[in-house]
């Protein structure tokens, strides 16, 4: 028997758990980035909007996930969406400041030069500001992805919605410590692999900053 063979009460095989884990946690992180980019851009442009937005994303980060699950179950029932939505919300607390810092880090003379060259607002954002903000944004994405992977474990309490986290709840329920260890090391390994993959992606996206120290 291999360590990856799971008892029938887990109701999923190892590969299935991994797929669920990756889909939900990284999907939530990607959705969070999609929401953070426009919010962050707006906050960078209208400076007075940033403090209240920052307070808001920080406060919702403090809501316990169990409470959010219970609240959401009424609407989204026992589906992956119930786990997905809180993970998106939590990721905002990391990603919105990341985007704002990234956009603000664009040197003013570069922005003026871009305007003076005749970039329109959309082109300036896509071709100048966003690429220059990428190292800072990617640093935030790495933190958000890893934290999302870890936070998702709680989904196990809803019954088989926590990816590798299911191994914790099931292992605890059936006094099978092996499952807990397997879940723990799987999560650690996955977090490590995802972080390395995102680092590699960042190198690829920002060859120009490869030899500089990247702000974490």
């Amino acid at each position, binding site marked *: 028997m291999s360590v990856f063979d799971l008892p029938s009460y887990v109701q999923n095989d190892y590969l299935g758990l991994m797929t669920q884990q990756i889909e939900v946690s990284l999907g939530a992180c990607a959705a969070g980035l999609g929401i953070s980019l426009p919010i962050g851009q707006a906050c960078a442009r209208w400076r007075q909007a940033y403090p209240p937005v920052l307070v808001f994303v920080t406060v919702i980060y403090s809501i316990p996930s169990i409470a959010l699950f219970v609240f959401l179950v009424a609407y989204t029932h026992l589906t992956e969406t119930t786990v997905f939505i809180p993970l998106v919300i939590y990721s905002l607390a990391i990603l919105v400041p990341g985007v704002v810092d990234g956009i603000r880090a664009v040197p003013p*003379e570069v922005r003026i*030069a*871009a305007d003076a*060259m*005749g970039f329109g607002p959309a*082109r300036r954002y896509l071709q100048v500001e966003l690429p*220059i903000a990428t190292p800072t944004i990617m640093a935030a994405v790495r933190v958000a992805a890893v934290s999302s992977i870890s936070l998702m474990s709680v989904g196990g309490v809803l019954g088989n919605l926590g990816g590798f986290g299911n191994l914790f709840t099931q292992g605890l329920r059936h006094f099978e410590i092996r499952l807990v260890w397997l879940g723990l090391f799987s999560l650690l390994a996955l977090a490590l692999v995802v972080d390395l993959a995102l680092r590699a992606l960042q190198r690829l996206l*920002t060859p*120009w*900053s490869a030899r500089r120290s990247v702000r974490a």
Partner: protein
Amino acid sequence: MISFERVTKRYPDGTVAVSSLSLEAPDGAITVLVGPSGCGKTTSLRMVNRLIEPTEGRILVNGVDARQQPAAELRRGIGYVIQQAGLFPHRTIVDNIATVPRLLGQSRSSARNRAFELMELVGLDKSLAKRYPHQLSGGQQQRVGVARALAADPPVLLMDEPFSAVDPIVRKGLQEEFLRIQAAVAKTILFVTHDIDEAVKLGDKIAVLRQGGILAQFDTPDRLLAEPADEFVEQFLGTDRGIKRLTFYTADGLNLLGGPVVAADTGTAAAREAAAAGDFPWLLVVDERRRPLGWTNPETLSGSQPVGKTRLVSYGHAFRADTDSLRAALDSAVLSPTGWAVGVDAEGAVVGVASQETIADAIRTAHATRAHPDVTPGRASGDAAGDDTADDDTAADDTPAEPAEDAGPEDRPLEQAR
């Protein structure tokens, strides 16, 4: 041509940055806006490409109101160079330069070819093309900035203190390079600086602005230095404006003497004879290629050793007789312990020497005869040629061993001047 017509910029809080500014920057010339900080020079510049919109008045670029076309389109037709270069850190040098051609819809390859041409024009090695801006020195980045502004071949160029963030030596090189490029491309340039020396060096016309964006004087550099309009301009020009003005008088009309120039192997007797012939208090000793070694006092010569073996007095620094200004000649004379300036040619060979009194005479003559300073390059060469030939004979007598060498360098600067 860029025309400001009673342009005012007033901010909502009531601050007036530019006050009813009217001036015309002529075609193909460098017009410098200069003034202390807060004089609205950068604001004025940025109103031309509408990075800042004027409150009142209008700005015409080549006869067309800047507000008649969309800002982005207008800007693609106006080159812009900013103080910190403002290069895009995420783009290679070649792609930075190709920015505006790409915005104008040129294909990547033709935009890059254009970028390579410009790298050559501004003196950047092709091996830098694939580098990123942070891998370049400040001076190189500024060159890229200039190349990027010129890439779409705009008729008008705006430059906002482009050379002030680099060290003085690099700045001097960039300024000279910039004048060389401008001689080739002849753009209509509006150039902002706070440095009056830079303004005098680069400007065909200079607009001095005072606090609140009020035009104090708009003139050619020579007229500005000669006749400041008021006390503010005079103070801004500094206490050495007379000396600065000498920059506009070339030294090629200076009467350089070859008599006091002797070769290192000249004996004491011959040296004394040379000094006595022209009543020269000092003799300049030169090596076999006529490069200056130092001054010797004929009175104190003794013994039989050649003058080259005696202790010589430093000559300070020499000036280029064919290309330098009277300012450089005067500086050479002032710096020299003997009070004599040493004029050399492109190879560093001595053309002749001039005393402080001779230079002072030349300055007086220049002031008296010169109504239009920038129009007659090489005008004094007729006189100079006559004088030089006479000196040449004397020099040849002093150093009979090398008559050919003596004649050669003295003729060269005159050939170059033409």
